[in-house]
């Protein structure tokens, strides 16, 4: 090979290399690397891509994704560093704005100098642990300890609201209310104060402390808008009405039960004989038993709350028919007026019992909603 040929070959090789370099698209390569790293949730690869120079279109995106994944994994300090890089690169105005927002949010959780970082991480971890079913007490104890130890934590009011909600779900309304009172003392922003006060009213209503709820609502009305106040007012008025209705129903049941007891005693001749009559299932009860069984079996295939209500209603119905049957057992044909009175009292007792049953678990709300809006199309 001559020198000229070698030189020509060298020139061609150099041209090929230059063409390759020129054809390489750093943005396309960066995009591929970005997609691969995101698919693997690989924070380190994203940081490496973000830090690589020269800067590509994807450098700030890589830092932004690194920050998102760091927040997700609870590494808030790493997230802050990544967000600062997005701002430093500054080529995408919307991404920069979003990074500033994320930084502000993290600072809101962790404090300006990151002094609450560990508390924030623990807060997230424990809330994620808080089981929706099962016994939450162990986790709640840890959350309570966290809240008590760090009353200055920026999210303390909302942490206390979460603790209260969990205690209420666990059936400890008084403890829930105590935590909401505690939250009131540490809430400083208007949004937090409003939310804590409204949650307190709701919890008081649900726990039946209606007079206290009334007082709290009167105080809240000074700061809150009419939409919130009216919604709480409706909730409170409804609770009062239902409480009255519940008392009336229990009263009716008590009176009818007393009347039934005396009627049974008179029909049987003595209390002992009355008890003997009650020990044998009357025909009416035997008739109702399979029907009730079928109703309960159907109910159990659907909504658990409705099923409990159906069981209660069938139980009340069975008891009423049992007592009614025992009273009428072996008696001579009765006058029409007495039969009508007997039947009317049985119907009233059943209606009162049905109200008490649907009032349990707020099934009555379902009934009212269905009445007003028709059944679900689904």
């Amino acid at each position, binding site marked *: 090979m001559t020198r000229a040929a070698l030189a020509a070959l060298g020139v061609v090789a150099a041209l090929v290399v230059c063409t390759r370099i020129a054809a390489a698209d750093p943005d396309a390569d960066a995009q591929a690397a970005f997609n691969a790293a995101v698919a693997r949730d690989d924070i380190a690869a994203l940081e490496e891509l973000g830090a690589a120079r020269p800067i590509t279109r994807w450098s700030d995106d890589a830092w932004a994704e690194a920050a998102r994944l760091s*927040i997700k994994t609870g590494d808030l300090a790493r997230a802050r560093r990544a967000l600062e890089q997005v701002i430093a690169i500054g080529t995408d105005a919307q991404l920069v704005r979003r990074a500033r927002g994320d930084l502000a949010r993290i600072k809101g959780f962790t404090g300006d100098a990151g002094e609450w970082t560990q508390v924030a991480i623990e807060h997230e971890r424990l809330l994620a642990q808080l089981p929706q079913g099962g016994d939450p007490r162990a986790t709640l104890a840890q959350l309570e300890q966290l809240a008590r130890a760090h009353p200055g934590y920026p999210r303390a009011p*909302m942490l206390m609201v979460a603790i209260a909600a969990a205690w209420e779900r666990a059936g400890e309304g008084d403890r829930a209310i105590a935590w909401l009172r505690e939250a009131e003392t540490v809430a400083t922003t208007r949004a937090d104060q409003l939310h804590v006060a409204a949650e307190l009213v709701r919890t008081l209503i649900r726990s039946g402390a209606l007079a206290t709820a009334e007082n709290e609502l009167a105080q809240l009305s000074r700061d809150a808008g009419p939409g*919130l106040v009216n919604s709480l007012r409706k909730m409170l008025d409804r609770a009062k009405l239902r409480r009255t209705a519940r008392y009336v129903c229990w009263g009716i049941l008590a009176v009818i039960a007393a009347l039934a007891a005396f009627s049974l005693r008179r029909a049987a001749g003595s209390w002992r004989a009355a008890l003997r009559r009650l020990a044998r299932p009357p025909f009416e009860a035997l008739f109702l038993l399979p029907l009730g069984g079928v109703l309960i079996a159907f109910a159990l295939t659907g*909504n658990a709350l409705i099923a409990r209500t159906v069981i209660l209603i069938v139980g009340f119905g069975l008891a009423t028919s049992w007592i009614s049957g025992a009273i009428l057992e072996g008696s001579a044909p009765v006058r029409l007026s007495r039969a009508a009175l007997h039947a009317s009292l049985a119907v009233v007792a059943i209606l009162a019992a049905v109200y008490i049953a649907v009032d349990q678990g707020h099934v009555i709300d379902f009934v009212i909603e269905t009445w007003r809006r028709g059944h679900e199309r*689904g």
Partner: protein
Amino acid sequence: MRAFWATALGLGCGLAGCGSDGGGGDPEEFVDSGGTLAIEGCGYSLTTRLGAEAPKRSGDKLGPDPTPRLVHLGFMGDPRTSIVAQWRTADETTTVTKMRYAAGENLAPEALTETVIGVRFRYNSTGTDLFHMHQAHACNLQPGTTYSYQVGADDHWSPVYTFTTAPDVEANPDTEVVLGYLGDSRGGYDVWMQLAAQVQTRTPDLILFSGDAVTIGLTQYEWEEFLGVAEPLLATTPLVIAHGNHEANAVNFYSQFALPGDQENFGFDYGFAHVFVANDSPDNPSELTVDIPMAMDADFTAHASARWKMLMHHRPMYSSGSRHGSATDLQAAWGPVVDKHQLDLVLNGHEHQFEMSKPIRNNEVQATNADGTVYIVAGGAGAPLYGFDTPGFWSEYTESTHSAAVIRVRRDQLTFEAFRTDGTMLPAGFTKTKP
């Protein structure tokens, strides 16, 4: 007949700008039969419904207190190039409707050099009160650009707010858009306020609200609270709201939200996402089985090449909630469209809780989210929380909590994250990727 002529006159004056206030004399007669007005320079028309008067161009009357309030954004045209600012005034008599704006963030009022003369109309829901809605339609904007703006009238302007138009994804393949998503705030405006603030810290480009903002759609004070407590978010981020059963097709709903199409069933592109919004409580329920699924099918067929496809409506097709459960009528009528177009996400509310499904196709759970649609119920923006039945076969995660979510959409990735009122994350997020 009186209503017909008055509407025709109102429309004619609106288009021609006749009269001193562009819409007739003063006091103006209120005729509630609705109407249509072409929006100059935007290429679309604004139609108001029965219960509202025909839209008119801005007048020149200043009432006793023309201070703008309840400022919120929407869009009717292409969100890359247009925006609609909407507001009311402290009085209900001001007819001047103006917006001034300029490209740039947090500009001083003097720097807002562009002016839009807006449109206005009144509506009446119950009683005799008339509510005066003002709208300014800014069109021919630049994609992916932040603008500062104010609304109101001379010497009576709102604070300066900013908004950012939707990006042009052709020019910016690395674009990420963040869609805030929540629903069912009705009654619980303290929670809605908390969640709106939480969503705002995530700097969303758009808010998707899956319905039931208020308890009774005709109750204006509820709408005012909904819009009022979230004004910092809604004055800076456009809102797309689906009609929920509690909105009850009230004129208040249709009057206060500028939305594309007929405001009930419409699709739009935002970044790499294509979203179809549907009304699953229409006035005529027969539309659920024919008209709406047909419109949905046609829209997704026309946008078959969209990278990410989503459907937002109110009643969930899949829900383990104890209150309403799955809307099996929608499953039957709309499910086949969702499956046919292989939607990525279906966003719902109605059940006041959070639930995320496994990927579903043909009513069966799929192995990966590449093969199925994920159905989300995020109906916990303030309404009283509901409980759960035993989770259905579809259910991936359930939590009875007040919550909101953000959906981050890039060309090749979609990330879903949900969070509670205190900002803590729900352990129910996912990332879906596409080659």
